[in-house]
């Protein structure tokens, strides 16, 4: 544990990394994924603890939970001093097209391409290359830096840049570029909204917050020569290469910025160092990228051009069918039947398990959900089979428990669980006997079911649930679809009496489901109001349990308690679908063989795609 390089085993460092990612509003889920990719289960446990601890909480020794056992430790190859080489795309079958053009829509016109100032500028990140990059498995491998090494306690990192990578105008990419760019981001005059991401660098925070006596030159990043970048940090930071590979650490081209100011990322001004360069940007219409031949790995990248017409998500399918785009990544439920029955589209259909669960939460603070009998009655009134098969047209699986199938410690519904959750209208009505609502009468007026705007599938399922509760129990429920952010804020404040909500699993362990969502004693608050001491005890104990059999039993018991109380009604595990034209091959895949489309962390899908003759 004293090896500062094995930072994922050091709670202090994990907590610091979390703080950095919080500075750029990164989702806790993504953070856990990144750490998990490097540190395996130990890393994820600590990452979780770091998230839960929050910034205000007193620094507890190590973590509140014992890290779960390490089933298959991921070899920590990614960020060590000797990283592995970048992936070289493989050969593909079939004849390649002469024009290697890939087309996929952008949903909105980007604000700019200045990732160095604002990583959420909504431009295409392929225009810039960082010192390292993420693989589809979310590990960091070298990019502009060919290698890096830390000092003894990982508080000073030296990056050795490759000498064969150039900006799109022919300037060499040097260590000075990164030094200048990171200082630009930290400069209070730049007013970069997420500068906090770089606060691990020595004096970065002081410079950014304009502490007296701290100047630009005091910031701990220095180009020793053209191709050596030395970064002095505030302390041991074994994870620093992860930050250096994240899009927030992208460089900007100094002469362009100095010449054009805010307009430097317009197509006619921009100079890129990534695998692609911006060549055309007609606002609100289209963004066109072309391969940057001067990028070091350009010879291994097949695509010549990327066209990104600006098409909102509702119109994307039509654009796909009109052959305006090659990849549509968000398909509506209302088009699913036709897509699947269409002889052509069905061949191009790609479905993804979202590894999550949609569930209904009756908050026991509010009438009538304060009565356990009512909650149990509701659990028996919802016909999950019908929702999955009819309403969602099979693009989901039935859920009775929280952990989705395919994840370790998935609880196969046995008689006991079905006893508590099965669809049975008579049983549902029987539960109301003796309550004020016996016979489906006297329900309080103004009952509501709330969920956030998240596409048509959850909405259709919610409508079905409302109807089932009405038919079986006589409840009259209004259906409220709220603004996403506001709805989640209200959920965390426990202001929503009946919430229809989902949880996407971050990493394959039930610590992430039953414990993460329902443990009620976390210092930073809890997602749902319901709490149960025995449940808390069991899930906490399960986290530290080494024996898989015993661990399963603990989770099983906890799940039974929760279902017996009907604190949540689990309904289905969602899937999603997209469409990829058949001539796009060599898709990026993770080590399980699953196609990984571009995502906040893994950005470099264009490096993989090859276009067949068509």
């Amino acid at each position, binding site marked *: 544990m004293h090896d500062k390089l094995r930072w994922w085993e050091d709670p202090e460092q994990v907590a610091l990394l979390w703080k950095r990612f919080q500075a750029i509003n990164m989702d806790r889920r993504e953070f856990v994924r990144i750490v998990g990719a490097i540190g395996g289960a130990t890393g994820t446990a600590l990452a979780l603890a770091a998230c839960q601890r929050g910034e205000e909480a007193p620094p507890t020794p190590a973590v509140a939970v014992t890290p779960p056992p390490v089933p298959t430790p991921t070899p920590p190859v990614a960020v060590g001093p000797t990283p592995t080489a970048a992936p070289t795309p493989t050969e593909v079958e079939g004849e390649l097209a002469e024009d290697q053009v890939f087309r996929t829509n952008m949903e909105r016109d980007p604000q700019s391409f200045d990732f160095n100032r604002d990583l959420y500028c909504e431009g295409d990140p392929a225009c810039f290359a960082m010192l390292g990059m993420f693989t589809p498995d979310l590990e960091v491998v070298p990019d502009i830096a060919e290698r890096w090494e830390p000092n003894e306690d990982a508080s000073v990192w030296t990056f050795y840049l490759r000498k064969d990578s150039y900006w799109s105008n022919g300037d060499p990419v040097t260590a000075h570029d990164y030094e200048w760019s990171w200082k630009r981001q930290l400069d209070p005059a730049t007013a970069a909204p997420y500068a906090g991401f770089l606060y691990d660098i020595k004096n970065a925070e002081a410079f950014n917050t304009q502490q007296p006596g701290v100047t630009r030159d005091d910031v701990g990043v220095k180009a020793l020569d053209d191709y050596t970048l030395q970064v002095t940090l505030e302390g041991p930071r074994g994870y620093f290469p992860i930050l250096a590979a994240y899009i927030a650490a992208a460089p900007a081209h100094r002469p362009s910025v100095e010449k054009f100011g805010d307009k430097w990322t317009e197509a006619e001004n921009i100079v890129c160092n990534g695998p692609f360069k911006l060549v055309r940007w007609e606002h609100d219409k289209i963004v066109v990228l072309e391969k940057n031949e001067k990028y070091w790995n350009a010879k291994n990248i097949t695509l010549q051009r990327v066209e990104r017409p600006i098409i909102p998500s509702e119109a994307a399918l039509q654009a796909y069918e009109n052959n305006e785009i090659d990849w549509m990544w968000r398909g509506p439920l209302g088009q699913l039947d036709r897509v699947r029955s269409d002889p052509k589209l069905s061949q191009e259909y790609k479905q993804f398990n979202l590894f999550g669960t949609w569930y209904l939460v009756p908050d026991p603070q509010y009438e009538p959900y304060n009565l356990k009998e009512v909650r149990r009655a509701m659990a028996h009134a919802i016909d999950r089979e019908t929702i999955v098969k009819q309403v969602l047209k099979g693009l989901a699986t039935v859920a009775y428990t929280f952990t989705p199938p395919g994840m370790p410690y998935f609880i196969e519904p046995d008689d006991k669980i079905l006893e508590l959750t099965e669809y049975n209208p008579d049983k549902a009505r029987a539960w109301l006997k003796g309550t004020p609502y016996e016979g489906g009468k006297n329900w309080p007026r103004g009952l*509501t079911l709330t969920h956030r705007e998240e596409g048509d599938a959850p909405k259709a399922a919610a409508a079905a649930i409302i109807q089932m509760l009405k038919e079986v129990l006589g409840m009259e429920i209004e259906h409220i679809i709220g603004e996403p952010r506001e709805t989640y804020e209200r959920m965390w404040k426990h202001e929503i009496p009946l919430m229809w909500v989902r949880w996407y699993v971050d990493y394959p362990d039930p610590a992430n489901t039953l414990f993460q969502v329902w443990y009620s004693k976390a210092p930073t608050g809890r997602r749902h109001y319901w709490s149960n001491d025995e449940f808390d005890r069991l899930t906490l104990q399960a986290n530290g349990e080494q024996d898989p059999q015993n661990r399963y039993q603990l989770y099983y018991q906890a799940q039974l308690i929760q279902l017996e109380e009907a604190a949540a009604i689990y309904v289905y595990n969602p899937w999603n679908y997209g469409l990829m034209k058949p001539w796009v091959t060599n898709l990026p895949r993770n080590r399980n063989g699953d196609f990984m489309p571009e995502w906040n962390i893994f950005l470099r899908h264009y490096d993989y795609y090859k276009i067949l003759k068509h």
Partner: protein
Amino acid sequence: MTTTGAGATGRAERLDALVWAARPHRTLWRDAFSRLLANRLAMFGLVMVTLFTLMAIFAPVLAPYPYDRIDFSAISQFPTWTGKYPLGTDLVGRDMLSRLIWGAQVSMAVGLGAQVIVFLIGVPIGALAGYVGGRVDAFLMRFVDVMYAFPQLLFVILIMTALGRGMQNIFIAIGVTGWVTLARLTRAEFLALRERDFVLAARAAGASPWRIITRHMLPNALSPIIVTLTFGVPQAIFTEAALSFIGIGIPEPRPSWGKMAGETQQYITSYWYMPIFPTILIALLMLSFTFLGDGLRDALDPRTRKRN
């Protein structure tokens, strides 16, 4: 011909005058109504608006099913024209026909209710500004300018958030934000009318301002007002749809035409009937109001009478 004179011609003339006076008395409105009756398009509009209104009022009787009844065995079923679901079912398995009939309630209420409020606010303010002029006019028009500066949807959202959800709040919100155009228009009409001879004559005859405004100026300004109000109806219907779409309009599962069309338009390639039927009804309603509005204008404005 003169009515004064003596002798035989004089008597005959007096008889003429008597006959003339014995004719049934016709007011301006009655006159207008008879002209309206003669206008076939306007009558079509009137009949359709009446039908839609009746449909809205008697929705509980007319609709074959409740609007929220789901048939899980018939999800997104295409129209069969006869049988159980003649116009098909929506994405959740609810009868389209029933939802369309029920949707008339919300759409008609919002469309008409909002226009009543628009009329009640917009016309008095515009009339006052146009008739009185001077400082009052300047003050009111600056106020109108301020109101114009707000993006309407944003303002509606603000009001909805303050008032809470519910049908009456929707038309209050749309009405309170939608009157500015009408106020400006009324003012412009009044400014022009104020200098006309008949108004000057009325003033010279000692008519009170109230009488001048209501009896002399308003009827003459009515035609553009009616046309604006008529076009405001479909606009209000669409605003309601936008509100429902972002979740602060009519709460689900209550249907409205605007919402049905708005939500399902993205499925037009898969299920054409889902957006098409409500769109047809909205178009029909809008057309009916337009015909009716045109007819009213022609009937009320003697200047256009000859063209009929």
